[in-house]
């Protein structure tokens, strides 16, 4: 058990650090993407409410 921890200790530490950084970075990117999608969706709804003729153009 002791050897299992000690063997390649620094590589284990480095890979753990990289894993944590990657997880938080990707998580942040995903949250940002979701927020942007939500904002876009909301802004399109607002523009539709403010300008209802935008969607309903009379057919020629």
């Amino acid at each position, binding site marked *: *058990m*002791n*050897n*299992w921890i000690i*063997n*390649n200790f620094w*590589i*284990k530490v*480095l*890979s*753990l650090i*990289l*894993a*944590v*950084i*990657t*997880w938080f*970075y990707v998580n942040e990117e995903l949250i940002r993407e979701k927020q942007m999608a939500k904002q876009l969706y909301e802004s399109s709804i607002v523009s539709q409410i403010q300008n209802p003729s935008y969607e309903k153009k009379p057919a020629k």
Partner: protein
Amino acid sequence: MDNYTTLAKMFTEICILWFAYYGILIFARGTRGVYVLRGIILITALFIITKLLGFEIINWIFTKIFALSVLAFLIIFQQEIRRGLANIGQRRWTIFFLKESEIINEITTACFLLSKRKIGLLIAIERETRLENYIESGVEIDAKVNSELLITIFTPNTPLHDGGIVVSGERIAASGCLFPLTQNPKVSATLGTRHRAALGLSEETDAIVVVVSEETGGVSVAIGGRLTHDLDRESLERVLNNLYRPDKKNSKKI
């Protein structure tokens, strides 16, 4: 309850990433790719730092470099990726079924038979660090570890007796392999090339390297850049048992 699920997911995902990174680092450690990997880690660290500091121009350049580097990565690591994928399918899972004691017994028998006849021997036993580079430098054998075969290989005036053997898993991967010589200035000047090669390999990798001296017939083991001289059969078996099975409770360092 929802919080616990989120935490569990986060923990599992980080563990998966940890395992993947560890596998990649261990795999790259024995190959030429380690220097490229260092460069990638450095560039990634710089990318994160510039992003945190808000250096938008530098960050934009890094983003473009990253986009190109995916293609470069595939080309540079073409061989390693192919080998790694092949290994996932073939090798690592068989490690649970290895008969270590049999392999150790075969190696020890060969060592002491050659030691009696004062015939030199150099065997590197692969552990976590891959020895692909060194295997490539020799002649591929891919045979079951067997004392008779080991003795035959190291018999003088045969084509494969020069260089070392790499034992990977339960197979003799290659013979006539070239190992790097130690550059340590503290090493005794009287030490021969075979012992220097054993030390050199043990400095660069976590392999266990067994050497038999041609001059004295002494059996030595090199690990982690340290050489233990003149082992008897029991000591060699004990050392190999302890080091070849790292999860064993009574393991100890030399």
